[in-house]
């Protein structure tokens, strides 16, 4: 049904366009002028050549439109410049980064592109610091995502229970997310302070500690995870809240009529319907976790994070900008990119299958 409609629309549009063109014929003549005349500032090269070369019938623009769809050339000025910019800065840069990772580029003399090999990757695999950073990255991403999801879901359910001042509480829970990693790092550095920090003073009242949260290499990663959970569970809460609100009230009522307890109702009826929210929130959280570089840098005001909290992101930047091992840093960056891709690839495929792309 939709297919028929859209083909009817296309035909109608063609008629409309033909009428317009024939009306223009007195002034200009060719098919191409219409596209040219309308937006001279936004035209790309292809359209301009067309106006000159093809007079009369089937122009280059029409052939492009026949191949790619009706609005292809007319909409190009809108999507093409942003697409080219992103293409250059994201995909061009990643490709370039890969090539650099194959060179031996280091120090201040530019890269030599004539001698390419995978030496840097071999070095990375045998570097225990890279292995540690990979393990830490993995732990950070998994622990942070899991805890932030669980905690955010709890917050969303609490907020969704018909409470008073719902908006105020929601605003407070989401507040840390509006802050920079640099700012929250200052707050948590103070929270974790050995002598005067809130965490040690509160724990001191129940006879624990004081604990050196940042200085102890086996705890620091979890301290960072805790701070990140504080900053981002508000985000998961908002996503889950939108998901909860989308569930029809009848589902709750049906569960009630069946005599299910509140806990059972959430577990059996509500949770399964939040699958979409969970997946998209998890993806975004993982991306935030990979960006934890800003937080770790600010904790120490330098490239070397506290012992035990080195992740691939910090290791990469340190190799590049502190010791100028550019090629090696690029190789680490590619490893990080592949880790991200292994998460995003399936996600985008899933979204595509769901018809969201």
């Amino acid at each position, binding site marked *: 049904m939709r297919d028929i409609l859209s083909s009817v629309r296309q035909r109608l549009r063609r008629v409309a366009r033909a009428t317009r063109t024939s009306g223009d014929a007195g002034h200009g003549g060719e098919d191409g002028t219409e596209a040219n005349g309308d937006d001279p500032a936004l035209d790309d090269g292809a359209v301009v050549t067309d106006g000159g070369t093809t007079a009369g019938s089937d122009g280059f623009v029409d052939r492009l439109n026949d191949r790619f769809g009706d609005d292809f050339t007319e*909409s190009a000025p809108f999507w*093409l410049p942003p697409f080219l*910019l*992103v293409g250059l800065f994201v995909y061009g840069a990643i490709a370039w980064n890969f090539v650099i990772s194959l060179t031996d580029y280091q120090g201040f003399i530019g890269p030599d592109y004539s001698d390419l090999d995978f030496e840097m990757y071999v070095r990375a695999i045998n570097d225990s610091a890279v292995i540690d950073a990979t393990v830490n990255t993995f732990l950070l991403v998994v622990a942070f995502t899991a805890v932030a999801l669980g905690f955010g879901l709890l917050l969303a359910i609490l907020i969704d229970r018909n409470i008073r001042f719902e908006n105020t*509480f929601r605003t407070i829970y989401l507040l840390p997310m509006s802050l920079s990693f640099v700012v929250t790092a200052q707050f948590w550095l103070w929270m974790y302070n050995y002598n005067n920090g809130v965490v040690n003073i509160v724990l001191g009242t129940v006879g624990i500690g004081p604990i050196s949260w940042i200085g102890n290499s086996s705890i620091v990663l979890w301290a960072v995870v805790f701070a990140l959970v504080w900053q981002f569970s508000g985000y998961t809460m908002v996503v889950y809240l939108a998901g909860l609100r989308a569930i029809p009230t009848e589902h709750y009522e049906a569960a009630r009529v069946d005599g299910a307890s509140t806990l059972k109702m959430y577990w059996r009826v509500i949770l399964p319907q939040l699958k979409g929210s969970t997946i998209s929130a998890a993806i975004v959280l993982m991306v935030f976790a990979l960006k934890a570089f800003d937080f770790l840098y600010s904790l120490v005001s330098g490239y070397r994070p506290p012992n035990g909290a080195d992740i*691939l*992101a910090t290791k990469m930047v340190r190799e590049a900008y502190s010791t100028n091992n550019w090629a090696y840093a690029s190789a680490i960056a590619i490893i990080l990119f592949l880790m991200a891709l292994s998460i995003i690839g399936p996600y985008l495929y899933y979204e595509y299958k769901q018809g969201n792309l």
Partner: protein
Amino acid sequence: MSDARHDESDPTDSAGGTDGLADRLRDDLAGLDGYRVALYATILTMTVFFLTPIESGLVTAFKTNPEGISSTLPFAPPPPQFFTLEKWQTAMAALGRGMVNSALYAVPATILSALLGSFAAYGLTQADWRARYKAPVLTMLVAGIFIPYQAVLVPLSQFWGAMPLQELLTPLWVLGVPEAYTGLVELTITHVAYGIPICMVLFRSYYRNVSEEMIEAARLDGATFRRVYRRIVFPISTPMFAVVLIYQFTQIWNDLLFALILVSTESSPAAPVVLILAGLGESMEGQDFALRMAGAFIAALPTLIVYIMFGEEFAEGVAT
């Protein structure tokens, strides 16, 4: 339904000390079931959890270093003998220049990336071209959101190192602008490029729900694609522009990585505020936490103001 009625007996109403209140409190509590009490207790505990780091930072910023900090509880307000505004003055003197620099690139980058994101979303939703070709373009733009920026850093430095931007901007230097401000132009363009994907996705979710009939009718009347954008789509995008501008501004203002790579030193005249803050309190007289906290609040001020004024839009931006 009974839940809704219980709402009327809110614990904050009954938080009082006198005898009359105590009676009312007892009545209220009788009306409350244990479940409701536990619910509100949990919600208030969470509120304390989320506010403590911020509150502790705020009170600390008004204390003298080291006496005030070490002899008071971290979350207690400063007693008169340890109260000082000096840290705010010092922090403002150190960060003031950074605030201006941050605004100089965050504002244009926010507007440009929102505009380009809106263009891209319009060209990829309302335009009629084959999904077979549209899907890869769309996928590449969407995937751009999730790229770890480390994967583009080295080429980015190389690229900006090779670009003759400094020569192109000669008129500015003649006018007396420090040459280090090249870094801010680089930051603007970089943030625009990496901001487009998320802006595109936000606008796209909005444009998909725009009534097709209206646009179709305009097209059939012979309006060009560009005219439809100017006359119909752009004006009705205003609410979404609010969401995107707020979200993008917060992201760009808060970002440290690109500032660190492209401006590199906090002593540069073009250093953004986050870059200066990252080194504040460390370099001066050891770990001065009072100064750090004051600095953190000053650096966060623009995003805090935006968040408090437009909390709803911010929530919408992150939820999409």
